């Protein structure tokens, strides 16, 4: 028998009970819709995290004092990183290392325009500044020549607090710890993850922060840029050996510093997000099973209602297989149509959510293919029993059925 004719007949049969068909499809629509929506949002989240991390660049790794990446921020680490550590790495002249960027951090009060605020201060060198990657709204970045000058880049939120909104503060003076600093640039970071932090901070030359604000040469971080990210782990191993040696760590003791590369973090975050997405999508697919049971139920009703029709078809020569195929295709058509509607609704839902949360919208083709295959399988699996029951009817019992 021709499949196009059976499909046409199936659509006609399904249309004849439109409300019933629609309600049956609802289970499939909800199942597929939620899987598509969750998978799509999951992928959007991965893309969002990637985008955020990429804004820092992935061609470097960071070294922080202590056991974890944030132990250096508060200072007071038992064995802090210092400029000497940065110098050791720089002096090693490793082939894969492009630049070494030490960062100092301080929290202090800054005053200007008769106002005083609490700010975070970053002490950076020229390569460090490029790693922070802020957008310059007005003025210029720090240069090597500024390393001993009292010049400052001010974040847009800090500038707004001190000077008011939409004002160019370049050329204005800032007072920190009684010293005067000339503002040479206004910066803005658009990163959702770190923008708020950087935008309310001030960037000063590293030496100035060490000597005049902190009063020591402690660093909270050293960032090392590499030429080839394929060898980043090798370079990290080499730097680890170098630092352990420089910091006189005995064999068998733990590091008193830690090293992280964004590529590692990114891979970890991506795999966790993908796993969570698959897990949640898997849980939502349970509703597909409920939808499938609905399909089976309605197909059983349909077989009973159309018993006489089955008898008639058998009397004109339909074989068991013809009847089986007809009912199976009917249940597949129903679940595939439900699946397609679910895909459209899922995509629409994911699009609206990504719009509402300002995350990128990703149309996941593999998940759409999975959804189509899944809805077809639901149609086959849950349609098989009713179709077999229809096929097994004896022609005479079916014809006599009242």
């Amino acid at each position, binding site marked *: 028998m*021709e499949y196009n004719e059976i499909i046409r007949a199936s659509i006609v049969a399904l249309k*004849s009970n439109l409300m019933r068909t629609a309600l049956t499809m609802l289970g499939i629509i909800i199942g597929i819709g939620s899987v598509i929506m969750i998978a799509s949002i999951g992928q959007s989240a991965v893309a969002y995290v990637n985008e955020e991390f990429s804004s820092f660049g992935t061609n470097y790794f960071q070294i922080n004092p202590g056991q974890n990446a944030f132990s250096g921020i508060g200072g007071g680490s038992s064995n802090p990183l210092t400029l000497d550590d940065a110098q050791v790495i720089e002096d090693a002249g490793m082939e894969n290392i492009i630049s070494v960027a030490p960062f100092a951090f301080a929290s202090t009060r800054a005053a200007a325009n008769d106002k005083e605020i609490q700010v975070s201060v970053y002490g950076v060198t020229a390569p460090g500044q490029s790693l922070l990657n802020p957008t310059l709204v007005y003025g210029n970045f720090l240069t090597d020549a500024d390393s001993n000058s009292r010049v400052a880049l001010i974040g847009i939120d800090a500038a707004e607090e001190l000077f008011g909104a939409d004002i160019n503060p370049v050329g204005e003076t800032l007072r920190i710890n009684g010293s005067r600093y000339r503002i040479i640039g206004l910066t803005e970071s658009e990163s959702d993850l770190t923008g708020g932090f950087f935008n309310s901070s001030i960037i000063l030359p590293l030496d100035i922060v060490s000597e005049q604000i902190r009063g020591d040469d402690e660093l909270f971080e050293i960032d090392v840029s590499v030429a080839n990210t394929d060898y980043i782990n090798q370079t990290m191993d080499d730097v680890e050996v170098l630092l352990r040696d420089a910091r006189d760590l005995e064999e068998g003791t733990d590091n008193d510093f830690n090293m992280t590369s964004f590529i590692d973090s990114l891979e970890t975050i991506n795999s966790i997000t993908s796993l969570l997405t698959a897990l949640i999508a898997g849980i939502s697919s349970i509703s597909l099973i409920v939808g499938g049971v609905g399909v089976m139920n309605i197909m059983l009703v349909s077989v009973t209602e159309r018993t006489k029709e089955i008898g008639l078809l058998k009397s004109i020569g339909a074989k068991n297989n013809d009847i089986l195929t007809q009912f199976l295709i009917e249940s597949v058509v129903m679940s595939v149509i439900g699946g397609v509607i679910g895909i459209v609704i899922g995509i629409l839902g994911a699009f609206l959510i990504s719009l509402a949360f300002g995350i990128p919208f990703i149309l996941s083709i593999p998940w759409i293919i999975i959804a189509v295959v899944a809805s077809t399988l639901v149609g086959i699996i849950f349609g098989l029993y009713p179709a077999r029951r229809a096929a097994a009817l004896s*022609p005479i019992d079916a014809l006599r059925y009242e």
Partner: protein
Amino acid sequence: MVNKTSLIELKDVTKKYPLGNGEYYQSLYGISLTINEGEFVAIMGPSGSGKSTTMHILGALDTPSTGTFMFRGKNITSYSNDELAEIRNREIGFVFQSFNLLPRTTVYKNVERPLMYGKVPPNERDQRVMDALRLVKIEDKAQNFSNHISGGQIQRVAIARAIIMDPSVILADEPTGNLDTTTSHEIMGYLQELNQKGRTIILITHEEDIAKFAKRIIRIVDGKIISDTKK
């Protein structure tokens, strides 16, 4: 030795139906009959006489409990479901009293359906469907849905579908049961015409005036043939 013009031969056919409590209801008690090619036979009997069971066996819709059913000299008693479906498709055309046509389906598609099951190539079908519809003068209703035509027209479409595979025999089970006298005679006229062209017709009826169209009348009472008369 099978008569060379013998189309159908029932030998000592019985039919028992299980009642579910280990007991049986026996509908046929040793029916034996031979129908030759080109005959117009009416099987008559009151309700519950076994005439419908006989017709179901003759139509390969049901199988005998005991006895044999020879079709064109072949014992088809133990044929598989698919083999019987093939016989129904190629050798037998059915016209039922009611529920003859597929609902939600056009007249054309109804008549075409046996050709699909018979795997007739699509390019041959249109001609055959329209020829069959023309024979019963209903070609103008080809695209009408089966629920949008009258009872008499339904029976004409059923006749068109019954002959579409050019079967050896047409089995008509009370084909005029739901029709008025004029339409009944019209339908019988078509069957008579088909018989005159050489087709074997087996008619199941309880109406004497309908049975008169046949050339041979077999009467069944209580599952046994009580008379078999030829005009």
